[in-house]
């Protein structure tokens, strides 16, 4: 893939092209997880800088460039959500919203965009598993404890959820 080759040669115009074509999709997955616009912008910047720095380590025999970037975005977003800064900003926002919010928030409904919109078409027992594992980054073990269902059930149900999901993304 020529784009990857150019990126590995550190051609800025290739990176600019990459941004123009992929930033909306990556921004959307970040928003799906982070939901706060400002923090999502921070994560997006971090993700693109990471892509630029780590493009050497991308191996196109292991998968598509987009899949690689999607996983970087997802991981960075989950890291952000679990950070102290995010927890603080959530508290601040709740505070400011309770003071100033008079209807009409600028926040997007993150259930209605990108992959999460597709996941929300699944039935509830599948939706919750993909929500917790993919969008919130919990391990199957943690999910089993959170929901009080056996680990084996979590495993098989998550697999079924993914099979359903595949039918929806086709």
């Amino acid at each position, binding site marked *: 893939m020529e784009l990857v080759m150019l990126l*590995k*040669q*550190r051609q*800025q115009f290739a*990176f*600019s092209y990459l*941004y*123009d074509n992929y*930033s*909306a*999709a990556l*921004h*959307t*997955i970040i*928003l799906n997880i982070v939901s706060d*616009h400002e923090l*999502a*912008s921070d994560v*997006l*910047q971090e993700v*693109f*800088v990471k892509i*630029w*720095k780590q493009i*050497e380590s991308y191996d196109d025999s*292991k*998968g*598509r460039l*987009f*899949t690689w970037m*999607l*996983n970087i975005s*997802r*991981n960075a977003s989950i*890291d952000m959500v*679990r*950070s*102290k*800064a995010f*927890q603080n900003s959530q508290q601040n926002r709740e505070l400011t919203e309770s003071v100033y919010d008079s209807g009409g928030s600028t926040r*997007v409904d993150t259930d*209605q*965009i*990108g*992959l999460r*919109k*597709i996941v929300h078409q699944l039935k509830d027992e599948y939706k919750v598993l993909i929500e917790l*594992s*993919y969008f919130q980054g919990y391990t199957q073990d943690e999910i089993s404890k959170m929901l009080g269902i056996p680990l084996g059930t979590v495993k098989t149900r*998550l*697999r*079924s*959820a*993914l*099979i359903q*999901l*595949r039918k*929806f*993304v*086709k």
Partner: protein
Amino acid sequence: MDIKAYIESGVVESYVLGLASSQEIAEMDRLRGQYPEIQQAIDSFETSLEKAAFTNTVAPSPGIKEKIMNSIKNDSSQGAAIIPMVSSPARKMGWMQYAVAASVILLVSSAGLNIYFYRQFSAANEKYVALLNDKTSLEANLNIYRTKTLDMYSSMQMMSDPSVIKVSMPGVKGMENNFATVFWDSKTKDVYLLPNKLPQAKDDQQYQLWALVDGKPVDAGMIGDCNGLCRLKNIQVAQGFAITLEKKGGGPIPHGQMYVLGKVATS
């Protein structure tokens, strides 16, 4: 290996989405090179995932591209071979702080969880031990009742045996309130006593049963602390039975007060 079932199991999707365990990833890395069908399934899910991720998107704010392009500019001038450093020290510190803060939060919450789970565990363990004790004492009680029931059953069997003679012994003069019964097996000559109503003997005293043989009392055994029926000494011949209160251990001839007396009915 059933490749089709493997592909259909959802493992491809969890691999592509980054949800697979390290074991599953290692397996998939091995199998995808070996089976073109698996490679094809991965490609096809990646493609449809990409297509899906491009629908209903929200574009980032316009200023962000410039910021990103600026932050990579310094790197590119250093040439391709050099692994670029993190863009600004301030930013790096920021992430360090996040990381430290996050690990502190994790540590504290994990310690908290440990305490919580330990308490839960201790409480559950205490309850478990208490239940175990209850169970043991219930079992012991059950065994006592089971033994008593078996004793009663065998007593009933014995009493209803036609060869057993029942000798009622009412209280003698002055002891009219007392009453006891002897069951005497005419075949085996076994003697059983049911102390229906006798006052509690003092610690140094004991009731003794006598068989009356030709007008003479013959020791038929001491009445101990028995449940229900007491089995006493075998008696070959007797015309009657009596009970006296003796010193503990009794003796060959009666010394104490007689309480009850009954004659064997001659048929």
